């Protein structure tokens, strides 16, 4: 399947796909023209609802449904685009920002029109200077060309867009931490409810959507929601960006129609494992996702629901492939260390528990593990995510703490012997 919705332009015009001229020359802003000219805001929202688009930020929540949660009578409303993309292995929003920023700008204008929003924000991770520059340039061009600002295209619709750079905290990708950070507070997740749609930025109704989600909106408005819904499997329709990395022959970003198997994704799209090595495991949806292994999951379909049923998720679309040489304890330790480092620190189980698990794994990795550490590790994990179930239960405020549990349950389920061997045989890492 070669459907290209998000990446067609950048593929065809690698040199200048980010410019307004190229964007307009390839049909850009016609959806906005159409919406402002012929459609009511409700019409636009209805198309998005009909598209069955599910959010690309991680949780896969239906976008049209989320938009419907805005209370009727409260104004102002805000749209916040989540471009914090910081999960290890995820680099899909980056190309959308860097190589087709006008697509996002048009999506923002369309979504804002649909939602009666007059001020939208894009929160870009601080380590993305080039994508942020490209986006800022695109926004400036759009203002100049009359696609943003007051009385857009003579329609009477006004929209301001503000780009804000983060300061290097992964947790600011969590939508309520993001809102706090945008307000100038510490980037700490808020207690929900209230959800942002009811009380978000500056306590006003706010929709937070991922870059990819919003970038899809121009196509949906141009072609109709039903056309989008018709692509791929019913509950995971449309195309989706995957960031393939690790031990694959062709790492990179791929836009694919969901519904293929993992075997297809890793071996056809990704070109298989280098040097003819065997596949050992892969992370199907970002560092917070429980791992998949070839024995059980190669024929699982790459859809949101199939992956959930198999105990993991498509999450942020980051697929990290590990070959047979991978030290899974080292890999798990690296991921847990990331989450411990990125914990915002406000809730006890995450602040203390992630660090503790990291230390236990470090011990095991360095030959200082004890037999009791296996149970201890699982029990500490259980105190963060009771029952070690999927989707996770949590003693924490947000899912970051439980995210650190995923690699641990994964290695304990599939590679317990390797972990035990490290304890009985001692260190393998200097």
């Amino acid at each position, binding site marked *: 399947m070669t459907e290209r919705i998000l990446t067609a332009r950048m593929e065809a015009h690698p040199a200048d796909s980010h410019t307004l001229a190229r964007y307009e020359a390839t049909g850009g802003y016609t959806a906005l023209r159409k919406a402002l000219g012929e459609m009511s805001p409700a019409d636009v929202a209805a198309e998005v609802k009909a598209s069955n688009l599910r959010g690309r930020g991680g949780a896969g929540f239906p976008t049209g449904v989320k938009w419907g949660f805005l209370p009727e009578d409260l104004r102002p409303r805000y749209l916040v685009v989540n471009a914090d993309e910081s999960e290890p292995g995820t680099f899909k929003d980056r190309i959308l920002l860097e190589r087709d920023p006008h697509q996002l700008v048009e999506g923002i204008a369309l979504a804002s029109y649909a939602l009666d929003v007059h001020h939208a924000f894009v929160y870009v991770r601080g380590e993305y200077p080039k994508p942020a520059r490209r986006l800022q340039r695109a926004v400036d061009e759009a203002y100049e060309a009359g696609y943003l600002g007051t009385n857009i295209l003579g329609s009477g619709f006004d929209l301001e867009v503000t780009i804000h750079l983060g300061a290097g905290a992964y947790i600011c990708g969590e939508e309520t931490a993001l809102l706090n950070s945008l307000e100038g507070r510490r980037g700490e997740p808020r207690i929900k409810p209230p959800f942002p749609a009811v009380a978000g930025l500056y306590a006003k109704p706010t929709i937070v959507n991922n870059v990819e989600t919003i970038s899809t909106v121009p196509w949906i408005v141009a072609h109709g929601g039903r056309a989008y819904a018709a692509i791929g499997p019913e509950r995971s329709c449309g195309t989706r960006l995957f960031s393939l990395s690790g031990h694959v022959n062709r790492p990179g970003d791929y836009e694919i129609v969901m519904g293929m198997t993992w075997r297809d994704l890793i071996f056809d799209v990704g070109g298989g494992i280098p040097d003819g090595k065997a596949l050992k495991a892969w992370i199907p949806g970002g560092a917070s996702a429980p791992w998949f292994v070839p024995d059980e999951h190669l024929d699982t379909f790459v859809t949101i629901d199939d992956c959930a049923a198999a105990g993991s998720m498509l999450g942020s679309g980051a697929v990290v492939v590990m070959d047979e040489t991978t030290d899974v304890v080292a890999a798990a330790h690296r991921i847990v260390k990331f989450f*411990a480092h990125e914990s915002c620190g406000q809730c006890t189980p995450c602040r*203390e528990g992630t*660090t503790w698990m990291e*230390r236990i794994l470090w011990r095991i990795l360095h030959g200082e593990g004890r037999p009791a550490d296996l149970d201890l590790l699982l029990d500490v994990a259980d105190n963060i995510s009771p029952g070690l179930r999927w989707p996770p239960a949590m003693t924490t405020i947000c899912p970051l703490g439980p995210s650190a549990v995923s690699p641990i349950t994964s290695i304990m389920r599939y590679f317990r012997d390797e972990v035990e061997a490290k304890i009985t045989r001692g260190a393998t890492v200097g």
Partner: protein
Amino acid sequence: MADAPDQVSITLDGRVVEVPRGALLIAAAIEAGTYIPHFCWHPRMKPVGMCRMCLVEIDTPRGKMLTTSCTTPVADGMVVETSSPVVKKAQEGVIEFLLINHPLDCPVCDKGGECPLQDQTLAYGPGDGRFVEEKRHYPKPIPISDLVALDRERCILCARCTRFSEEISGDPLIEFVDRGNHVEVNTFPNHPFTSYFSGNTVQICPVGALTARPYRFRARPWDLEAVEAVSTVDSVHSKVSLEASMNEIVRISGVDCDPTNQGWLSDKDRFVYEHLLADDRVVVPLIANGDGFREASWGEAVGLAASRLADLGGAVAGLGGARSTNEDAYVFSRFLRGVVGTPHLDAQLDDGLAPEFAAAVEPRALIDDLDDADAILLWGPDLKEELPVLYLRVRKAATAGAKLVVVHPRRTGLDDVAAHTIRYRPGEGPALLRRLAAGEGDLAEARDALGAGKVVALVGRPGLAEPAELAEAVAAFALTLDDARILPLVRRGNVFGALDMGLAPTLLPGRVSVDDAERRRALAARWGSLPDGVGMGATDILEAAASGRIGALVLLGVDPVRDHPRPDLARRALERAFVVALDLFVTDSTRHADVVLPVAGLGEIQGTVTNLEGRVQKLNRVVPPPGQARPAWSILDDLAAALGSELEADAVEKIFEELATLAPAYEGLTWDRFDWAEGRDGVVVPLEGVTPPLRHVPSDPGLAVVSERPALHLARVLYDDGVLVRHCPSLASLAPEAAAHLHPRDASVLAVREGDRVRLEGVGVVELPVVLDPTLAEGTVYVPFNLAETAALGAVPSVRIDVVREAGS
């Protein structure tokens, strides 16, 4: 389903209970008798759900869900498990997580023995720890202010202190820094935790991370003997627990009294006990001897005082009583009027409000009225400086939505949360009031804010150089509004109780006018006699003493040289008259006394006091008075006996019983009423039935004293050089630098810069450095009252200002 509209029913561990609609689950459960452990939740602050100790399981359509009960409001039909295996495991987990980095230095920790972490570890924690790594280390306690030390190793990051500072006291000087496992509480560089309320954070810290430097290592909780009382530092009367070890008060903690302090104290309330232990406290009777004093026996001292008072007939006056209990004040009133036979007595020093107004202005507001007020008018002192706990209550109301209008010559602590701030030059208050009442020009919005709904008017003197009548005029304006109540603001300890006991020339006990014939008869019958006519107030008394018309002054806990607007007059009066002083210290005033009689202080006596809203509460005793100090009423009883009269004041209960019979507003109160549930928050004595109604509110404020010279704004600061603060080592150093504050434009006209020195001439002359204050009304100089360097200035409407030029420049 619950029957009452404001109740819902929930199932708590299988038991169906009715709980208040909208309540947080944790509060409702605890109220219903099911304790839920917690660290970060505090009933007086917004929940944050951070510690995760209060997890419970709730039935949802998708099965049981773990959730924090401190962030979940109750809902009708909610089914809750507070100790299921899942909940228990989660709680054990949280405790274990908290302990992995918590040092086990409980044996040397102030909190040990009253530590929520220790207690909950015992009740809900795992048997042992499994953490074998090195704990997180920080340098042991670092001072974060003169009063508070911070031990970051002990901190469990519950955010109670940081939330208190931001949400309650409004001076966010401590914050979380860093992230994840490196989060720590700390102050900002070069900004110490100089909050007037810092001690509250020590009290609500669930571990020993924040400790009070005056208390560190002084006692173990299990050695403390505690009684309830109220703070008499100011007239709010915050409820406290007085805690003593080995017969010394070593700590004062706040007690949550819903209508008053809601648990909070100012640091002055909290650390003021230090004065009781001061080395130079007067603990034996003293008789003047040359330039100083000599110790004397009670018999000799009382005998000397009585014989001189007897010689002078009625040419005697009494000052003070505003720092004493109601019982002391009542006995003082009876002693002066009934025994000495003088009508000249005053608890205030012309530094407060007219007694009739302060005691009986109607309709009177309760502090609680702030909570549902639509608007609050504050035209009076800077509450943060003078009545800090009332500042907290007004701040709470204003942040909850009440429209606050602050009128003051300079920025006040409440300006941040005010809807409207209005500045004026002292002296121009009446003109401003007329414009405000008319809603003229830029005052229209503030006037509109006051026009709608329930209004609480907090009225007092913004500064001592402004006349008391201004407050009455402001009240008169407020009474023209639809639904306004007045809270008169006078700061000193038990000044309202003293007025209620008749310590004012125009008042008899029980808010009765001196010319109420019927009450006079009743009193005279009991007291034996009552002098005729209206006596003199403080200033007239001092004038009379200075000129010899009054031969003797009896002082009860009063310091006219420091507190009267005319310090020079006070000094001359005390130098000339025969002075009997009942006091804790030899002060600038009592050093002129002929006899000083040592009185017992807070925690050393029992008694009742009455706060600014008319709430009567009880003080209990936890330590014996030092040396030979005694309750004032008992000293006065001896003096009366030496004068040949019988006061029958031999037990505090008896005095209370007597005043509750003779003081109409207090009728029917009984001594033990305050010890039981409904009286523990005190009893507000009614204004109804006061005869005659003591309205004393001029409707036309023709008081303007506008001068070409700079107007003087002379206002109190929390930490001054008064006798209490001076005798508390921990507080004395906190007094601000004395300075003359000028608006930058005035300073540039005078060609002075910050730090230059100016000479101010009021009653006396003082020389002060200049501080520039752009928030001050132009044409005004602000000087903090009652600092050593400013004491001589006196409260005059305007001052002469001269720049002190360096020689040669």
